[in-house]
Structure formats: structure tokens, C-alpha cells
């Protein structure tokens, strides 16, 4: 079983307590009604789906119930780091090869 570090519980907890909540750092437009159809489609439907490092939202559903962000490698399924919601994208990833 994967162990995921919850930044609010400050420890690694079993993956069964967590839910994935899609890609992180997708900014919602302040003027949603003024968005063009193309821009809205990009915001609403289009996700990066990379092979490698991805920034995701996760929720500690059956624990503290908080949303947080995680950096995960989609190839190895390894969690590189997690950080609290609202914090900026980490500039440097610990132990990342690139």
C-alpha cells in the first residue's frame, strides 16, 4: 500500500484514506462570464496528463478531510512531495533527477 504524507496530519498515512481530486494549480477566471468558449474549454476540460511529474490535488477524505497538493510521478507512481493547499508550486523538488 502507498503511504501518502498529509501536510495537515504531518505524517504518512495509508492511501485508503485519500482521494485524488484532479490536477492542481488550475486558476479559475475572475470573470467567468466573459471567458470565450475556447478559453473555458481549456479551463474546464483540458488537462496536461503528462508522463512524469504531475501536480495534483488530493483530499485526506477519511482523515482530516483537508484538500492538499501533491507532486507525483505518473511513471513510477511515487509521491515526490506534498504541500498545503494555497501554497505556491514548489520551485525545487526534493530528490528529482531533473
Amino acid at each position, binding site marked *: *500500500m502507498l503511504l501518502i504524507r498529509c501536510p*495537515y*496530519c*504531518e*505524517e504518512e*498515512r*495509508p492511501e*485508503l*484514506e485519500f482521494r485524488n481530486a484532479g490536477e492542481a494549480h488550475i486558476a479559475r477566471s475572475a470573470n467567468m462570464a466573459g471567458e470565450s468558449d475556447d478559453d473555458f474549454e481549456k479551463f474546464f476540460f483540458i488537462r496536461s496528463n503528462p508522463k512524469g511529474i504531475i501536480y495534483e490535488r488530493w483530499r485526506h477524505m*477519511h*482523515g*482530516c*478531510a*483537508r484538500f492538499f497538493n501533491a507532486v507525483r510521478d505518473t511513471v513510477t507512481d511515487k509521491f515526490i512531495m506534498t504541500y498545503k493547499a494555497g501554497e505556491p508550486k514548489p520551485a525545487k523538488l526534493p530528490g528529482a533527477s531533473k
Partner: protein
Amino acid sequence: MAKAAVKKTAAAAPSAERRAALAGQELSAAGVTLAVLPPAERISLRAPDASIAALSRALGVTLPRKPKTSASKAGRTALWLGPDEWLVIDEAEKDPLADCAKVTVLHSAVGISHRNVAISVTGPAAATTINSGCPQDLSLGAFPVGAASRTILGKVEIVLLRTEAHTFRVECWRSFSDYVFTFLSEAAGDAAA
């Protein structure tokens, strides 16, 4: 709180019989005993940092701020569930909801006394029994006496509190209580084997 007072006088009349979920069920296996705990007053409390001190004073128990901890005083236990969320259990038949109602600082207190059912798991095989459906590390080092956490057991969510080295309190939702008790019964048999 006038409403609560009215309710209590009405309940005193012997017109209705309240049957608690799982009433009277118990199970003993080698090394572990399951028992349904008596009804308790419970609230779900949400509050920002600025309100914690006032609420702690009103409740008479200091709301813990460290993850996975609880605080207990005079029959009242506050369990840390999240950064701004606590489960307060009162076994001394005092109403924590009434205590919170006197507080003017921002908070949300919801009475959930009858939403939950508590099951005690006692004995040297208690941790093994719970671990058959709960993926958390329940060794005394990682989950010491007083540790509390919302987690899962099998397919349902529970709140787990370690009250003594070999005693756990499992809080589950009333409608899941049958599943939880049956699950723990099966697990108790396996843990004893």
C-alpha cells in the same frame, strides 16, 4: 436552549421506548472483548484558531491542536479530527452543545449524539482486531494512549480513540454500526486464532 429543555421533559414520559442501535450486543473472544458503549452526548465542533481558547474554557477541556491527539477532562473528551474540526464526546451526561451556545466567538457546534454509536475493543488482541480492517499503524509508538484519528475500517469511516494501551473506542455512524460490529466480531475470532 429552551427547546432542549422541553425535549427532556417530554422524554421523561414513559410513552416511547428508545432502542439504541446494537443494544445489548457483546462478544468475547480469546484476547479481545467487544462491547457497545452506553449512549453519550456528542458534538461536531468547527472553529478557527481565534475561537479555540474561548471554546476550551466553555467546554472545560482544552481543544487539542496537534494532529492525532485528544484531550480529556471530567468525562468529556475532545478529539482532533482536522485543523479546525473536533469531535467532543461527553460521557458525564452534560450537554456540550449548551456550553458552546454560551460562547459568542465564531464557531459551529452540531449535536450528533445519536448519529454515532461507540464500540469498545478491549484486550491484548485489540489492535490486531482493528488492524484487520484499519490500515493505520496501531503500535503504541505510532498510536499512543490518547491518540485519536478519523480513519477507515473495512468499507466505512470510523473515529478511533485509544483510551488505554489495550482499549480502543470505535465511533461509527449509527447506520453502519451493524456492519462495524459484525466486522469486528469476525476480526476478533481471527485475531484470537
